[in-house]
């Protein structure tokens, strides 16, 4: 295991592994070893076949799971548990249905030492950023899925985190809403200059959003390949360059998926 480097990097993953004990007492390697550094303001997208451990990786980054080995450090400090400094956008929105739209966005701000009036104005500012300022007093059940995810985006950005973790945030949405929110997310990210770790199984989504794409192998999940994307946004997914990249990523993923299936039988 490498000694953790105290770089100023917002996110530094080194030698991370996760092993689960199965019920029969055998140990099963789910993840790693993985080492990745993420630069400030970088939009990192992790793509992988299902069951490759990409969600496990995000759970460790969030602090919900402890790694078996290796460390995750944020701004040079090794993480030990969940923190408001690493906010998250969930696939199932995870909004609090007993709170209004505004109070959902305010939830994290209330845990920080921010004066009350300021909490409200910050929350409203972020609701405006996602275009929902007129819905501040609505109940969560009154919103569509796309609107709920926009509230979740506002909530995650509002707490001023070092890193934003996104666990297939658009996976439950219809194709049109998904396209819309991808653009919205890019706009907000460019405005707010945040570091993002985004997990998806959609190659198109990865190419549309990422500064850098990591492709994970099948279990135990490791980093199989890495691409840096410099093409300007908004990206045309039908350009030759992006089509070629898509084909490359797909052929890698196909290989990995095949491995999973031959391994299972």
């Amino acid at each position, binding site marked *: 295991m490498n000694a953790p480097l105290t770089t100023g990097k917002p996110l530094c993953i080194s030698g991370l592994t996760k092993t689960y004990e199965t019920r029969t007492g055998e140990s099963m390697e789910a993840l790693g070893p993985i080492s990745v550094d993420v630069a400030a303001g970088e939009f990192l997208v992790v793509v992988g076949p299902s069951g490759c451990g990409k969600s496990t990786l995000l759970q460790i980054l*969030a602090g919900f799971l402890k790694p078996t080995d290796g460390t995750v450090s944020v701004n040079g400090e090794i993480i030990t548990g*969940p923190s408001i400094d690493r906010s998250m956008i969930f696939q199932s929105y995870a909004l*609090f249905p007993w*709170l209004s739209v505004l109070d959902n966005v305010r939830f*994290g701000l209330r*845990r920080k030492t921010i004066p009350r009036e300021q909490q409200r104005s910050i929350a409203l500012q972020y609701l405006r950023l996602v275009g929902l300022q007129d819905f501040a007093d609505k109940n969560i059940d009154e919103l*569509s899925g*796309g609107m709920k995810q926009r509230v979740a985006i506002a909530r995650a950005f509002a707490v001023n985190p070092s890193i934003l973790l996104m666990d297939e945030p658009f996976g439950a949405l219809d194709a*049109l*809403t998904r396209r819309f929110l991808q653009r919205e997310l890019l706009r907000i990210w460019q405005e707010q200059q945040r570091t993002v770790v985004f997990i998806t199984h959609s190659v198109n989504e990865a190419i549309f959003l990422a500064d850098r794409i990591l492709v994970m192998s099948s279990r135990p999940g490791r980093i199989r390949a890495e691409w840096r994307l410099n093409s300007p946004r908004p990206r045309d997914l039908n350009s030759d360059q992006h089509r070629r990249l898509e084909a490359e990523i797909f052929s890698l993923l196909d290989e990995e998926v095949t491995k999973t299936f031959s391994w299972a039988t």
Partner: protein
Amino acid sequence: MNIASAKNSAPGPGRTSHRRWPANAVRALPFCYAAIVIVLVWQIVVDITKPDPSILPPPIDVAWTFGHLAGDGELAVHAGYSVARVITAWLLSGIIAIPLGLLMGSSQHFERIVNPFVELLRPISPLAWIPMAILWFGIGESGKVFVVFIGTFFPILLSTVAGAKGVDPVLLHAGQVFGCTNRLTLFRRVVVPAALPSIVVGLRVAFGTGWAAIIAAELVAAHSGLGYLIANGMDILRADQVLVGMIAIGVLGFLFDTFFRYLQAHYGRTAR
């Protein structure tokens, strides 16, 4: 490719709310219809079989007795006793069962210690406790409150436990990520509000079982309450008085349940 296309799925910002009163009236209709049918069938049975009034009096006689008992305030006094006993016991149950249930639902250790007691005591019907209640507390108020307490305690406890256990794990994660770093804050800010709708259901169900238990307790050992009114009617061969008591029990039980449904619909989701 147009940004506006995604907005089509969104509901409009405003919703009309001018339909409240007619909706309530419409909702009451099936119950009026059922009441009318019951009275009609009753009248027809009386007309055909011509029973002795001490066994089945005609509806109109019962209506007279109802008016008489209601007019001199006797009915209200008995109903008041029953309601007061149920509310006392039900509040007492809530005060104990809700915190206990929340603790059981959020701590596996605690649940493992307490749950065996719950599972052993729960199958004993509150009615089975009536003789012990009389032996321990005599015929006074505390014995009846005790019986209703038994009847209301478990429904509240069980649905509180279920509510606290059933909190969506992703909401707990969201709570942690957004600053509830210690268990107490997470409990207060996420577990309790998330469990609240389930607690309200438990309170409502418990009020129903409590209302059934008090009548039984008053049948056996009381000098007041709707259960006593019925038992007394039977003793003096006044079927009309028994039926008045039964109608009062039904109407009050129905009104309480309607009230709780209303609370559930309006406050079950939006509490702090």
